[in-house]
């Protein structure tokens, strides 16, 4: 084994790698866009090389089962994190009550070059949500209802929210604090063709004072919408946000014409007729995929298990004789060796 390889597998080189990783971690605080990813990748690669060589050549590690397990666990974690970054996917989607999950509607999509998940296997329908608020507008628990369809076509109601994601086909779908109201509309053009859909208003209650949006019908000028909501919102008392119990007056503004619509009412505008069908809610979801997660967890647990095995054997083999200096007795470790190095 060359001296260079030995040095690369030494604990001294570990210290160099750790120092570099420490600098990389400090630079990565809060994920600044100006910090390139290599400040973490290079130290991690060096430490992975150091770990691999240490496991192979360092008898202080490979002859001690606990330390060996710990270092193999660490190497697995570094490797799995790398694989995770190559295969991950993150995205967001907003679903109106009654709408089915549609992979084509995902936005803010970020994914690794080896991402191989099958989004088509995610099949569920959004059913509505309830969010509890405490005094001071502090958000409490979220109950988001969905109808989940399995591969056989069977449908099962589920409730997700906060720290209870939907796990399906390796994906994790989280309901988020980004949610709101969506008036459902139907536009019937003068030639009789119609289009139905919904207009997602800004997040509620975060932007309760700005519930406005606009839409341009086929061939027509833009229509501005403003939603006046009655949700039971209380700033200083507990309340529950539940779109199906809320009412909303839709203020339609086009070319200076301002009309208030209640659900079920219509308005004739240049180019067609606008029907305000009903008021719905929409929920923003975060979609996350990383196939390495269970393996990362197992590796981490095995690593800690290795540490405890090592400590158990070490402490058992070298118990400390804790006698006071004034006792005048020999003051050393009971194994009568010089002080053993801890690792």
């Amino acid at each position: 084994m060359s001296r260079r390889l030995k040095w690369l597998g030494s604990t001294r080189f570990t210290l160099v790698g750790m120092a570099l990783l420490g600098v990389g971690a400090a630079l990565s605080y809060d994920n600044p866009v100006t910090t390139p990813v290599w400040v973490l990748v290079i130290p991690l690669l060096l430490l992975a090389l150091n770990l691999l060589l240490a496991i192979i050549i360092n008898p202080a590690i490979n002859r001690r089962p606990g330390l060996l397990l710990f270092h193999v666990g660490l190497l697995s974690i570094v490797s799995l994190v790398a694989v995770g970054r190559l295969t991950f996917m993150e995205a967001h989607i907003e679903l109106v009550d009654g709408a089915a999950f549609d992979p084509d509607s995902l936005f803010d999509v970020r994914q690794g070059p080896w991402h191989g998940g099958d989004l088509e296997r995610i099949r569920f329908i959004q059913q509505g949500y309830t969010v509890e608020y405490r005094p001071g507008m502090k958000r409490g628990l979220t109950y988001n209802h969905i109808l989940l369809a399995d591969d056989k076509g069977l449908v099962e109601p589920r409730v997700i929210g906060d720290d209870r994601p939907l796990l399906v086909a390796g994906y994790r779908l989280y309901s988020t604090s980004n949610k709101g109201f969506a008036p459902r509309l139907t536009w019937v053009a003068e030639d009789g063709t119609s289009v139905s859909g919904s207009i997602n208003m800004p997040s509620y209650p975060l932007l309760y004072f700005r519930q406005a949006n606009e839409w341009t019908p086929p061939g027509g000028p833009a229509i501005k919408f403003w939603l006046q909501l009655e949700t039971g919102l209380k700033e200083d008392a507990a309340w529950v946000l539940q779109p199906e119990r809320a009412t909303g007056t839709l203020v339609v503004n086009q070319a200076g014409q301002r009309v208030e619509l209640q659900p079920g009412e219509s308005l004739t505008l240049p180019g067609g007729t606008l029907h305000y069908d009903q008021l719905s809610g929409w929920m923003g979801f975060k979609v996350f995929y990383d196939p390495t997660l269970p393996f990362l967890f197992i590796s981490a647990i095995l690593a800690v298990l290795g540490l405890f095995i090592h400590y158990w054997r070490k402490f058992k083999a070298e118990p400390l004789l804790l006698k006071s200096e004034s006792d005048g007795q020999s003051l050393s470790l009971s194994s009568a060796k010089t002080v053993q190095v801890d690792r």
Partner: protein
Amino acid sequence: MTELPWLYAALTAYGLATAFAYYDIMPVRGGRVARHAYNERLVLLLLLTAVGLMMAALGERWLRLGHGPFVNLFELLMSQLFSLGVIYTLVYWRVPAMRRGALVALPMLWILGSWVLVIEPMDSVLPPTYHNDWLWAHVGFGKVFLSFCLLGSSLAGVLLLRRWPLFQGWFRVMPADKVIDALAWRFMLIAFAFHTLMLIAGAVWAQDAWGRYWAWDALETSSFLNWLLLGASLHARVSYKVPMRVGAVLIIVVFVFAFFTYFGAPFYSEAAHKGVI
């Protein structure tokens, strides 16, 4: 704030334990050994009382607010005073040869004790993402980590103070430097394992709560740097045969870093964990 009387009573008990630990080193005409044994029992009893009262304070607040001490700084300080007290008292009871280390450990505990007295005892609301079993594991492992850091650094403090003639008499009843050094590092080894467990439990909780297991937020970055620093210190001790007193300084640096990670993050970050609410 019905928990405050319990808290003040607990702090009084900690204060008396500290006072009697120091009373033990005062000059005496005769019967030092008898007084020493009596004082140690008294300190142990006072520490047990303080821990019991702290538990009552936490329980009272828990019942009143309906959630554990996980959210604001006042709660974190209270719960740390309890957990550090529990583990320190256990070690004080089970390892008599280390009891004189209380002269260093208890004043360290008093940093928290003084702090909790000067901050507003505000009520808190449990964020929705805190209704998760992994939070308990994460916080629990963190408390064990910090407790073993306290134990290790109090022994490191003994090693450093023994250099001065003024303090040599204080710690004469303790084992030789070599033994204290070995024990201090064993405490740090245990701290390292629990720090690792804390990071794992925190990552699992973060994945459930915020849809990511790591995001380099203030606490994550700081605690990872702390883990690296402790890991590097353990490696340095192997690689460079670090002298005992330099090792003692390293242990104290790790403890100080851990202290700022736990209690400093709220000062330089709006929310300790990204997306906490």
